[in-house]
């Protein structure tokens, strides 16, 4: 290593591109945050600093609706992402580490299917399907639909990660008399964690953001945040939506910071 004048892991310019990437990601959010403090009802013309829209979010006529919608969205996203990630992890194990079998290619096709169909088609088809089996629309229908389309999003990073893990680890474990279950939970799962976490996050944000399918399969009076926001926007985009977005952003930052601090404590103790 000492013979090389540079660090092999570093590529010049990658840091620059990463920073550029973050700037692109966060610049629009800066706009959202700034305009959530605008006193005028316009989202394009700045008037003066005010908390007006934050007050509106908590006390305005639509506050209950948005609170309920945000809550629904979070719950659905958490359950759907957890379920989808579990299903995807099991399926990836079967596809990649259970030998060759006849239904293998078909299984892979089935898992990627929700990704290949345009959302609007899934939306209409699912609605027709739920009606055909007389399944009453409500939160439950949203949840079921979300689980289905989250699976490929969770599966892709998990499968990509699993392909990078050599079979030797588990084989060694089994040679040391670990059961198959132990090899899975003690060896494969920990090695898979970055892939599983990535898959969960993708499933979570895809569920949190879904509008088209949700809009079709939701029951009367049930709103998720995207459906509430899309509905509100039809009457013109108001800064209260900017305020809600900023609050969500704050919640996510707090949650991430907390989990990071807790994670660090775990490791140090």
């Amino acid at each position, binding site marked *: 290593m000492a013979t090389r004048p540079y660090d092999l892991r570093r590529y010049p310019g990658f840091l620059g591109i*990463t920073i550029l*990437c973050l700037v692109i990601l966060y610049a629009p959010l800066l706009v959202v945050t700034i305009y959530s403090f605008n006193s005028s009802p316009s989202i394009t013309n700045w008037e003066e600093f005010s908390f007006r829209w934050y007050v509106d979010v908590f006390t305005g006529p639509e506050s209950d609706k948005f609170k309920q919608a945000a809550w629904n969205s979070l719950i659905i996203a958490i359950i759907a992402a957890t379920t989808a990630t579990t299903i995807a992890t099991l399926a990836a194990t079967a*596809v*990649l580490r259970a030998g060759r079998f006849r239904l293998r290619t078909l*299984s892979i096709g089935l898992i990627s299917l929700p990704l290949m169909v345009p959302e609007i088609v899934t939306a209409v088809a699912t609605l027709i399907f739920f009606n055909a089996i007389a399944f009453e629309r409500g939160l439950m229908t949203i949840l079921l639909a979300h689980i289905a389309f989250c699976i490929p999003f969770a599966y892709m990073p998990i499968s990509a990660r699993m392909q990078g893990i050599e079979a030797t680890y588990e084989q060694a474990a089994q040679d040391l008399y670990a059961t198959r279950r132990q090899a899975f939970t003690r060896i494969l799962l920990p090695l898979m964690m970055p892939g599983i976490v990535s898959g969960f996050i*993708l499933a979570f944000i895809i569920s949190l953001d879904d509008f088209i399918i949700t809009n079709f399969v939701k029951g009367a009076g049930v709103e998720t945040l995207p459906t509430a926001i899309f509905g509100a926007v039809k009457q013109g985009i108001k800064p209260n939506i900017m305020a809600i977005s900023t609050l969500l952003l704050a919640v996510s930052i707090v949650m991430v910071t907390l989990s990071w601090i807790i994670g660090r404590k775990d490791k140090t103790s």
Partner: protein
Amino acid sequence: MAGGGATGGSVQTDTYAGARGWLLLPAWVTLGILTLAPLAIMLVYSFLTKEFRGGVIWEFSLDAYDQFFFDRGLFGDAPPQIEWTYIGIFWRSIWQAGLATLLSLLIGFPTAYFIATRPEKQRALWVFLVTIPYWVNLLIRTVSMKFLLRDQGPLNEGLMALGVISEPLTIVNTNLAVQLGLFYSYLPFMVLPIYAAVERYNFALSEAAADLYAPRWTILRRILIPAVKPGILAGCILVFVPSLGSFLAPDLLGGARNFMIGSLIEEQFKGNAGNWPFGAAASMILLTMVLILLIVSARQSQKEAR
């Protein structure tokens, strides 16, 4: 190491062969009921007669496919010619989605690599840094992006103040804006799979190559990228396919002057046209096309691996 997310890669071991059925059961049940069954309904619908203003009449018909491929003039009674309208719409969407995927890859790969080579404790934080923006609704993000890119928006004003440009750049309502919007919509879907793959990469391989005097860009190209290819392919699929059917970025940033696949199909179900069989047929054609594309790319990468 062949294949990608779509092909699922090659089988590495048969450790769990005994539990295979149980491992696959949840996926088969969930997707069989919630995706396959509705899709089968759509397939059937594409071969039915359209009901005026939405819905279907249970009578076999090839009209939907005929409408897609044959042009019979404004009044539907001219001699049939090849219809380029819908093929053109499909081609435009593929082109846009492809460029957006390329853009995501060019920015997403270095970012993912950079994150994966951080000290272990920092990585999670960087991953969250990339995904936090996605807590904000896509519509709101897209609207804000439009605000930034406007003719009199901060980007143009900033560039003009710096003297880089003298006239504002027109970005909104152009194809570039659509690609930027799609890129912005799906970036984490590129970054996270690549990150998960690079994180697993064994740098001893790079060391070995460097010991044999390989320059580092050659190492990147010949050793690292092939090794993390499943992640790259997964990322490309996750960006490309949803981009194909997306309509928010094309509508808000591109001005919606032209149909994209997503808006064309949506118009059939939710718009004035109300032509469900045609919407179903267009979806089936899209689905077939994507599947062929994936199979070809999977075959290709399997060949390379041999």
